[in-house]
């Protein structure tokens, strides 16, 4: 999952970026309203975290512009303005959720997960499959027989993306875009390596290769 964090505060932004990365998201940080709007449209983000008080262009304007140009990326507003008029305006502009500062990281993470699952059309709660479930906090796979398997950062990001898009054909490019950050070294061949490692951990049948197209998560149709 790749997020765009738009926050101009010099201290909060980078720290929040670190915290979100630790939670298994690829996070790009933008600090300027106009630049952030361009970035949000250019890159295929899964979610945008938007501070309202931005330099050059207010967060609300950014949100309005994005929605006017049919950008459907879910947006969580993060703001120190906690009044109901601001909330109504925010949701009216097309926000998916609203988190008031000061917030606790757990709360923000919970909201992010909820919005992501809602957008993907997945029932809220743990990401589950017939044989196992994904513990998003511990970033581990828990099998129905109680066994656990730890995942590395990229493995976790990949598996979560697969589980949020079951049955979809996901190309290597798409996977790369949603798993890596903007300035990270992207080598789509590495994806193959990670997928093989994942198959090893959760079972080879669950991720099928569609030759020339990409990968599909889910049981092979009978």
């Amino acid at each position, binding site marked *: 999952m790749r997020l765009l964090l738009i926050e101009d*505060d010099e*201290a*909060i932004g980078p720290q929040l970026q670190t915290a979100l990365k630790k939670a298994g998201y690829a996070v790009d940080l933008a600090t300027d309203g106009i630049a952030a709007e361009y970035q949000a449209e250019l890159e295929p983000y899964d979610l945008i975290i938007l501070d309202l008080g931005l330099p050059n262009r207010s967060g609300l304007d950014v949100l309005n512009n994005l929605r006017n140009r049919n950008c459907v990326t879910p947006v969580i507003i993060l703001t120190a303005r906690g*009044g*109901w008029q601001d909330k109504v305006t925010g*949701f009216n502009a097309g926000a998916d*959720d609203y988190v008031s500062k*000061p917030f606790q*990281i757990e709360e923000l993470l919970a909201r992010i997960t909820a919005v992501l699952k809602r957008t993907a059309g997945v029932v809220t709660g743990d990401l589950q499959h017939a044989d196992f479930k994904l513990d998003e906090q511990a970033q581990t796979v828990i099998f129905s027989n109680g066994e656990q398997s730890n995942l590395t950062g990229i493995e976790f990001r990949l598996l979560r993306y697969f589980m949020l898009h079951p049955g979809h054909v996901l190309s290597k490019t798409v996977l790369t875009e949603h798993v890596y950050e903007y300035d990270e070294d992207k080598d789509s061949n590495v994806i193959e390596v990670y997928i093989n490692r994942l198959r090893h951990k959760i079972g080879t049948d669950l991720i099928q290769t569609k030759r020339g197209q990409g990968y599909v998560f889910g049981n092979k149709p009978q």
Partner: protein
Amino acid sequence: MISLKRQLSWGLAFSLIALLTLQWLVVTYVINNVIENQLAERLERQGESLLAGIEFDTAGRFLVDTKYVNAIYQRPFSGHYYMIQANQQLQASRSLWDADIAFKSLNKGMQTRSYVNGPEQQPLLVVAHGYQKQGHIVTINVAENLAPLKDSMVQFQMLYAGISLLGLGALLLIQRLIVLNALRPLQQVKESIAKLVTGETSQIINNGPEEISPLIEELNRLLSAVQNKTKRSRESLGNLAHALKTKLTLLNQIAERQEINAQPKIRKDIYATTATISQHIERELKKARLIGDIHPMQRVDLTTEVAQLITTLKQIYIGKDVNIAWEIAPNVPFYGDREDLLEMLGNLLDNACKWCKSNVLLTITKEESIHFIIEDDGPGCAEQSLETLIQRGFRADESKPGSGLGLAIANDIVNSYGGHLIFAESATLGGLRVEIRFPLR
């Protein structure tokens, strides 16, 4: 209280009446005087003419040559009379017939003027003069009836009074129009101030006149100074709140550092403290919005605002599957500020959504006051706790998040509009029922 209009009207009316009365008196007196003087002079000349006709014989008796006597003195009670006396001989004009009027004998060169009642109750002006002719002292009294003169004088007075009264009426009317016109700017100022109170305008309309224009200007200057001050202090309070909340976020982030992972108690304490500080900030910020400000009393479209608010709440509680039903009686006139309405209903509905099982109901009705009723099907509140809910809930210093800050803010807003909150058990849904009552404007 002194009324300018009354003062001006009465003052002008009294001075007009006084002036016209005085004028009437003076004119009447002067004209009367002039006419009487002329009459007296004429009588004197008549007397002199009679004197010219007097001839004394050797015995000292006199005769009046009829050539010198006007015919009018021959007709009985004609209103013109004379009496001549010399050497104990008294001769009266034929017109006097057998009537008698008091005769005044005078020494040579003396003259008097008197008013006596003559025959047939005629008011007479008598001019008496003493002469010397051919060595004899002659006194001639000439009289004329004043009645016709007085009649025409009365006629003149009536006419003059009539014209004066008409003039007075016209002047009073004009004067009233002038007063009303002059005071019209004051009426405009009054209306403007009324609009100011209801927030329809922020300045008093200044259409003069010169005398009150500086006053209005000064008031307007004062008003905008106050407005600017309020705005500035609210802005700086808003900025302060924003800055503080940002720093509190930072504090939370510090609590989330890895080094503190092993110290969950410290993390919890920091979280609790930042939450409390944040609530204090929020409460005071909302209070500051309400203090020293006149509510802009615009009519708020309840249906639109409530619909938007409920859409927002549904979005916030999207994971809970809350059913928010609402019913607004048609044409409920709510005058106030949109932000106040949203803040008040938002907090109360949020509370209801938080505690409900799945149903929240908002009803807005209008009776002798406007009622906002918010009900939920949550656990509600025990009878004895309802009172304490108000007490406890309205203290913003609870450390538990969501401990009634919203209720406190809603209560502040309701109070500032002169309304009040009533808590009860919901008869329809079984949970808490919060009712707001607003006085009709």
